[in-house]
């Protein structure tokens, strides 16, 4: 604080007595506060609530492994994953570990089968201790989905003797841990001294490296790069010399890949607009305040339109993605292109107008 004041005094002399412009200042703290209250806290609460229901469904299935209970568990997994993806964007440094405990992809199938074949007690404490690649949403998905086998055969895995029982125990333990971790994360955001307060307080970019607007922009970029490069690009063959590689899709077993990408984009939309209501103040309004333009158009409107275009392009792909990368590569390519275009708008144009790049890295600028 003292150094800010010192600076103020040092340059006050040269600035005093000059006139004032007409524009009312933009209250960034109010924008960030609104974002936390209207978007961040609710999406985390929603994910935690779905995960709690998932834990109950897993418990019910473990008690009575029937095809009907499996279907209910699968449906609840979808709902939980969709709710979670709206929160995936907010993987800030202090919560990154929880994020990976909730959703680390790809999961390690060999480890999971090893635990089930082993002798350790598979309870909530075990699930809490186990590494991120053996738990969370992808691990639960691995256990309860298999597109190659009919539901009865899958249920049989959970009923076949001692191994079946251990499989039931593990899925219930994982779901319980997932509920605990999402609840912990939601509490971190909602608490009065928690992540939300810290996020709002870090409002000044340049003052320290974690200026909230810079963090938020950075996470938007990271999410879009993740979708383009990994969620779409890897299965499209970008890692395999141009030959499609369907095994690289995220959530390939459940076939939810495209729906999850859609939820990611919806989360991003809400972060950008600061809420769902038209008069909610968000980054779009801040860009407009800064007179940010793209070829003469308001940049906020251009980004908004491109998010819609990306959503439409994702919707135009016939699910599941693991099939579409081979049967309809043009549609997948169109979705990829639309997301790349959105990425350029956010990473190049939006970041430039916000002037957040000076705070992107730890190194000094000059």
């Amino acid at each position: 604080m003292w150094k800010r004041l010192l600076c103020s005094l040092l340059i006050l002399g040269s600035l005093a007595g000059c006139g004032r412009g007409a524009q009312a200042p933009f209250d960034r703290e109010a924008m960030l506060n609104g974002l936390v209250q209207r978007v961040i806290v609710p999406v985390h609460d929603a994910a935690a609530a779905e995960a709690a229901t998932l834990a109950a469904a897993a418990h019910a299935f473990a008690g009575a492994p029937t095809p009907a209970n499996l279907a209910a568990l699968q449906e609840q997994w979808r709902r939980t994953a969709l709710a979670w993806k709206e929160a995936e964007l907010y993987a800030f440094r202090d919560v990154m570990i929880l994020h990976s405990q909730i959703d680390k992809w790809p999961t390690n199938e060999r480890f999971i089968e090893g635990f089930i074949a082993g002798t350790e007690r598979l309870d909530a404490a075990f699930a809490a201790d186990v590494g991120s690649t053996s738990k969370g949403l992808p691990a639960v998905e691995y256990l309860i989905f298999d597109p190659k086998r009919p539901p009865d055969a899958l249920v049989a895995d959970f009923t076949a003797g001692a191994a079946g029982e251990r499989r039931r125990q593990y899925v219930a333990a994982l779901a319980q841990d997932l509920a605990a971790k999402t609840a912990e994360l939601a509490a971190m955001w909602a608490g009065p001294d928690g992540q939300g307060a810290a996020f709002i307080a870090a409002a000044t970019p340049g003052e320290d490296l974690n200026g909230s607007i810079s963090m938020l922009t950075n996470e938007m970029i990271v999410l879009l790069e993740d979708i383009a490069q990994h969620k779409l690009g890897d299965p499209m063959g970008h890692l395999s010399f141009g030959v499609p590689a369907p095994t690289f899709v995220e959530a390939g077993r459940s076939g939810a890949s495209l729906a999850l990408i859609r939820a990611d984009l919806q989360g991003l939309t809400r972060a950008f607009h600061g809420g769902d209501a038209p008069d909610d103040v968000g980054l779009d309004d801040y860009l407009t305040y800064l007179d940010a333009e793209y070829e003469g158009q308001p940049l906020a409107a251009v980004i908004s339109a491109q998010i819609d275009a990306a959503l439409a392009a994702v919707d135009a792909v016939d699910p599941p993605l693991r099939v579409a990368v081979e049967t309809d590569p043009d549609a997948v390519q169109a979705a990829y292109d639309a997301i790349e275009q959105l990425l350029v708008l956010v990473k190049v144009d939006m970041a430039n107008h916000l002037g957040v790049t000076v705070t992107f890295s730890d190194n000094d600028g000059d």
Partner: protein
Amino acid sequence: MATLRIPVRSDKAEVAGRTDALRTWLARPADILPLVVLRVAFGALMLWSTARFVARDWVHEFYIAPQFHFTYLGFGWVKPLPPAGMYLVFGLLAGCAVAVLLGWRYRLGVTLFFLLFTYVELLDKSYYLNHYYFISLLSFLLIWLPANGAWSLDARRQPALVRSTVPAWTVRALQVQIGLVYVFAGLAKLTPDWLIHALPLRIWLPAHSDFPLLGPLFDQVWTAYAFSWAGALYDLMIPFLLLWRPTRRPAFAAVVAFHVTTRLLFPIGMFPWIMITATLVFFTREDFAQALRWLGVHHFCTWTVAPVPQPDQGPVARSKRGWMTWAVVGVLPLFFVYQLVMPLRHWAYPGDVHWTEEGYRFAWKVMLVEKTGHVRFLVTETATGRKWPVTARTELTPQQEKQMAFQPDMILQYARHLAAQYAAAGHAVEVRAEAYVSLNGRTGRLLLDPTVNLAAAHNDLGHKRWILP
């Protein structure tokens, strides 16, 4: 016409006379105090700076963790050492800084400091900063100056080294060095973006609108104009204001105010402290004495300021000048000519240097651009015609990726690296780059011709024709 027919001999005599006058002026004894103050302060700052670098884990983050390094043209052979070696380098840098600070085996210490520091800077251009370049130049210059003639362990050990005066050129050389930085930084600001559009300050300042007291001003466009014009005038004038006695003290106050302000507003690390310290070399003994008295340090003054310059040391110094003669006749003229050429070389390239970055480094172009970019490499397998994009995010660190995204020579380096990697895996490929860049708030557009196969492009000092205007 008659005036042109002046006899040649008198011309020569006049030149000889002037040369003599210059030589006398350069060699006349000057107080050693500014030199030793700078030496001590430089050593202390470099020690702090090195410790800070290590404490922030930047040795690991910048030089050990990355799998790929963007080396400078002609310096591809400069490679990072294994982790222990890199930490040893930084340990030695700290040791050299202490040696400079204490004046203990000063010549060796500052030479080694220059070599090690420059080695580290040459490892990767992603981390290029003008003030690192300045440190390299300053430490090189210090090699040739007798800054251990007072306040040093060397002088205590070898009384022959003790001197209260030095040839004037030694202090002048430092002043010229600092003046060059400021004046070129000022000239670099004489652009339409800086003066007419107040860019990029117009983008950067509003982010500080919640700054105490002054915050609301940063939301006003005229504030950006005031800062831009004041900044340009400051850079262009400050060396001269520091030289001239009547303006020296207000000028130093301006130096402190300017650099502290930039430090508070922008993450520019050590740069402000280094520049503030460097300008001390414009101070005379009386200036230091008055400054210390003003700070209430009277007893300190007695021994700090007591020694009176002894002009009779001049002939003694001249009689055993050796390396200093070499410095003044051989090395330093070349050193300064190099520094005059480097910042101007961008005029040899077509286009706007802020966009093309051809001749942008080593030219004191400080805080002139807000630049963001995104680059995607499009790989085509020659045998099959199959195409796929590659992003550099997996292999490069965020800092490297961010810097590469708007710098054509770095994009070229990485494209060639990708081609070599695929070739090593048995796939002959062509690599094209789709790079979008936004400069100072302008709509992002393509930086490079996306049809050019960069794997076959040359990496040299020539103009890169595939940079789009």
